[in-house]
């Protein structure tokens, strides 16, 4: 009987619980954004200053695709392809972060919109900033994996952990879909 005893992998439960709890955190900032939509007394409003971040979104969402390709390559033992697609994922994530930084630079310097300006500024920077922070943390772990594989460590033995990291990455992308819809589509 003991031989037939199979329980879910604890790492998968752990990462799923992390995703659950982070989802609720994001939900709170989305709710704040929605509640304060259109309530600003002064200052620039979303439709005055926001442009659809199309390229950044395409990059981030494609990075979900490239990370899946990387995982498949790893499963098949094709380390060269794994490294290629993993690098692509990192590059796409990096593009997203630089695009966000550029957008913020424009908003602060040209449009005079800061977190202090009005309710829109407060809820916009906190929500997009929270998401960007999560992308950044994901990037750090992606880089660690990349470094490990380039330094010749046996990444295949860590297939489980690479899979969990990719789940986190998909989560971060899914959150972006929500943020994009709420801030750039509905909110404008």
């Amino acid at each position, binding site marked *: *009987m003991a031989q037939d005893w199979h329980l879910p992998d604890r790492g998968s439960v*752990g990462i799923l619980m*992390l995703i*659950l709890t982070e989802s*609720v955190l994001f939900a709170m900032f989305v709710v*704040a954004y929605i509640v304060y939509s259109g309530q600003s007394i002064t200052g620039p409003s979303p439709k005055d200053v926001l442009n659809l971040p199309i390229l950044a979104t395409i990059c981030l969402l494609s990075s979900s695709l490239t990370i899946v390709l990387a995982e498949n390559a790893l499963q098949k033992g094709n380390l060269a392809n794994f490294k290629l697609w993993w690098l692509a994922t990192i590059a796409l994530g990096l593009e997203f972060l630089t695009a966000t930084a550029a957008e913020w630079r424009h908003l602060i310097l040209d449009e005079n919109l800061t977190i*202090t300006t009005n309710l829109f500024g407060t809820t916009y920077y906190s929500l997009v900033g929270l998401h960007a922070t999560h992308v950044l943390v994901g990037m750090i772990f992606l880089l660690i994996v990349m470094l490990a594989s380039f330094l010749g460590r046996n990444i295949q033995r860590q297939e489980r952990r690479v899979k969990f990291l990719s789940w986190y990455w998909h989560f971060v992308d899914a959150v972006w879909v929500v943020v994009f819809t709420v801030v750039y589509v509905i909110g404008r």
Partner: protein
Amino acid sequence: MASINFPLENAGFRTSEHSLAQILYRWIATTDHKKLGLMYIICMLLFFVVSGLMAVAIRIQLAVPNNHFVSPETFNQLFTMHGTTMVFLVGMPMVAGLGNYLVPLMIGARDMAFPRLNAFGFWAFLFGGVLLYSSYFFGAVPDVGWFGYAPLTSKIFNPGPSTDFWVLGVLVAGFGTIASAINVVATTVSMRCPGMTLRRMPMFVWVMLVDALLILVIFPPLAAAQIMLMLDRLTNSNFFNPAAGGNVLLWQHIFWIFGHPEVYVLIFPIFAIMSEVVPVFSRKPIFGKPAMVAAIAVIFFIGVGVWAHHMFTVGLSALSNTFFATATMLVGIPTGIKIFNWAATMYGGKIRYATPMLFACGFLLQFLVAGLTGIMLATAPFDWQLHHTYFVVGHFHFTLIGGLVFGLFAGIYYWFPKATGKMCSEFIGRLHFWIFLVGFNVTFIPMHFAGFLGMPRRVYTYLPGHGLETWNLISTWGVAIQIVGILLFVVNIIWGLWKGEKAGDDPWDAWTLEWAASSPPPEYNFEKIPVVRSGRPLWDLKHPTDPDWKFE
């Protein structure tokens, strides 16, 4: 499933062969769930004493009107730190400590799913607590109440760093709590010993699982509110800034979305203790285990939807108030069902009134009272009179002390022999129970009357000549009696460690897996991972002609 008695050395306790440095290192660097569990409990008890002393100061100030025992500023700091400490530095580590110590033992595992995360959780909690208390060294002690309403917490009305200490201390400790909760879920899902299906999991583990899931859902709102407040205070953002159109009620909504279910987070482990202690000392299995598990799940789901019963007076619509009032009354039903099931467990049993069972009985009666005063508060119209009065203070101390602390004492006396290998004194335990019972009721029953007579909460003094003096004085005298009770508890623990009888593996003749390990358990818990066939594996061993698995 024979177990071998291991000498104390192997459990990490001091012997002549180990230096102090080695022992300290073993505890500071540990990832063993039992050591971390004990560390949580010890820190929790220390914070309990500190916070209790604050309550003593509060009661001395309120013993007579216009007293000058402490200044108004100090008083406001006292009730803020008292509440914050009790919820976050006593209640939460209790959840983590009990869960981390007992869950692996009860499911036949060697440790939690993520031992290093476990250690992180403990040190984050301790660091958060130290951060909060360091506010004393900086002369910036928080004074906004444990639920710090905006805009009183804004930089305008609270310019110094005291509120920052409050937010950051609790936030950091909260990260530890979330880490602990992830660990409990992963452990109960993935680390059960062969044969232990979810149905056969002890009630205690079920409850800790639901508790962990609840934490994962409600601590993010707390973190969100705290991040928003910090952004307002540090960067002048506008989350709670009325001048920019901000809605100060947003804080209340988000905080209470955390704050109300938090009380279930705190009490669930006590329910879990009750579901272990009451059956063992009644000599019967828990009555209606599926109903008990369902009740916990129902409380979870309804409990996250009742938060605005803390906001009946802010001017929400009649529809909102009615919704939240109804939902709050509904959540009382599964709670009541649990009390009925514990009573039914005792009914027809052969009850042994050892110290754990005395405290369990105290819990049952006092938690019943607390639940009923809660129903009175749930009805919005009557709440409009009772809200923010001493009636509420009486109500929640009945749930927290009459319920939580009494249940916790039941658990501590129950598992003390397992953790230390020694028995406490039944005589001192009995004295502790009766004296603390009297002291607790003498302090907190009068508070309901003070509330009826119009005494608001969070006041450092009150108008003489309105009938409040008598009740306040009686409440304060009760504190003296409670102190005696707590001292007896401390004496009993010391006596148990020093002179207590050897406990053996299973001093209470219980039925769950932790009683199969030695007392205290060795670092690896079980020599061989057990295989179980029912919810009460030791019952099956002791009663081979009448095992549980034939009836489950």
